[in-house]
């Protein structure tokens, strides 16, 4: 808990906070973090659920087996020049069955803020997630691991979203994920693939609120990710997340990225990605870098 508060407070200076988390983890040393195999908990998405960076997996966060409890905390930043999004959060994995997560997001409107006469404007959002593993295991069963999740999202700066037409400042995303690792699957490297179907009415994942003139109902969006483990400690992959939104004046693009993930041990993981977020709120060609640090306990 104290770590969560620490992460939240530190989100204004994520790099220093990341370093602090890394040092904490190094100090934690050999403390148990569950027994599941390395990388099976994935990383932490920007919305706090275990997965890649933008697409959740069916995996339960951290490394707890059915006999254990695990926890993770994360910090991430994506920076496109016009925008930067800081996310911080924590999650609890219970008996490889249930995942509870919280995340806070802070989007800095670097370019739009001054243009709108609102220098220093930010859009913040809180996300609370629950994920239930329905069946399967990412590596040990022939069929995929399948999980059902919900993300309750609460926009904390609804003025701008309401002005551009969003109808609600909070809503729930519902998603179903299937994740499978194919041992020796591609050229005898372990390969992983994940598919997620998300039922959502979020605009730009909720940072621009929910619903609007384009429709108030939820829409089904497909999200996929996959990659290869080039060693026990390194994974390379890509993600794709469909988006639509309900603000006709601010059409959204699908998001995609390519990433490298490093899992030096069960306590720390680092993800570096190059992202292409397309057009966000009238600003074209939002490409940039994403860095995420996760600690597991």
């Amino acid at each position, binding site marked *: 808990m104290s770590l969560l508060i620490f992460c939240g407070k530190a989100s204004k200076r994520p790099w220093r906070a990341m370093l602090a988390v890394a040092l904490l983890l190094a100090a934690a040393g050999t403390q148990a973090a*569950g*027994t*599941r*195999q390395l990388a099976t908990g994935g990383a932490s998405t920007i919305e706090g659920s275990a997965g890649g960076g933008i697409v959740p997996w069916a995996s339960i966060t951290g490394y707890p*087996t*059915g*006999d*254990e409890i695990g926890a993770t905390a994360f910090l991430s930043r994506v920076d496109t020049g016009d925008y930067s999004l800081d996310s911080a959060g924590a999650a609890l994995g219970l008996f*490889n069955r249930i995942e509870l997560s919280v995340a806070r997001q802070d989007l800095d409107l670097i370019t739009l803020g001054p243009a709108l006469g609102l220098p220093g404007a930010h859009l913040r959002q809180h996300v609370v997630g629950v994920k239930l593993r329905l069946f399967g*295991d990412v*590596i*040990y*069963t*022939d069929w995929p691991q399948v999980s059902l999740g919900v993300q309750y999202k609460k926009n904390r700066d609804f003025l701008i979203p309401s002005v551009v037409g969003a109808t609600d400042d909070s809503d729930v995303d519902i998603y179903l994920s299937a994740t499978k690792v194919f*041992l*020796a699957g591609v*050229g*005898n*490297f*372990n390969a992983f693939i994940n598919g997620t179907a998300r039922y959502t009415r979020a605009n730009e994942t909720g940072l621009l609120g929910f619903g609007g003139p384009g429709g108030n109902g939820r829409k089904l969006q497909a999200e996929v990710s996959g990659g290869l483990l080039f*060693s*026990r400690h390194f994974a390379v992959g890509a993600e794709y997340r469909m988006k639509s939104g309900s603000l006709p004046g601010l059409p959204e693009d699908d998001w995609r990225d390519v990433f490298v993930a490093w899992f030096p041990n069960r306590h720390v993981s680092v993800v570096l990605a190059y992202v292409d977020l397309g057009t966000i709120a009238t600003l074209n060609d939002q490409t940039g870098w994403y860095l995420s640090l996760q600690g597991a306990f």
Partner: protein
Amino acid sequence: MRPSLIGEFLSPRSLHRLAASLLLAVSAASAAPPSDDSLYQALGAEAGVATLVDKLLDRVYADTRIAFLFAETDRTNLARLIREQFCSETGGPCAYSGRSMAESHSGMGLKEKEFDAFVEDFIVAMEDAGVPYRTQNRMLRIFAPMRADVIGK
């Protein structure tokens, strides 16, 4: 007039045939042990398997998470059975003389965390023994599905 290619492909009979051949391919991939001995050779044949099993049991008997499970087990006999199993499962010229995985683990009530601890020891033992990463993955592909036979029995 001949039906279109797509129509032919989608006809109930060809779908049936497709399903049948897919099923065959899947069962062939998951059932029979490999008919070639490339994995056995990649492990270093008899000497390589012996080294690997030694390193595995060194780890397991020193691992406080699971060593107690083997307290009553004769290590020499266990090593022989695992060598036989590794050899036969990887296409080597051996027969496995032990009981099935399900039989030999029944009554133990193995926990998931104990199984995963063993898998971790196995992976580190393969690293210790100099087994290349991609060969390690082939081994894991063979043995991972056995989890269902050994846990909670």
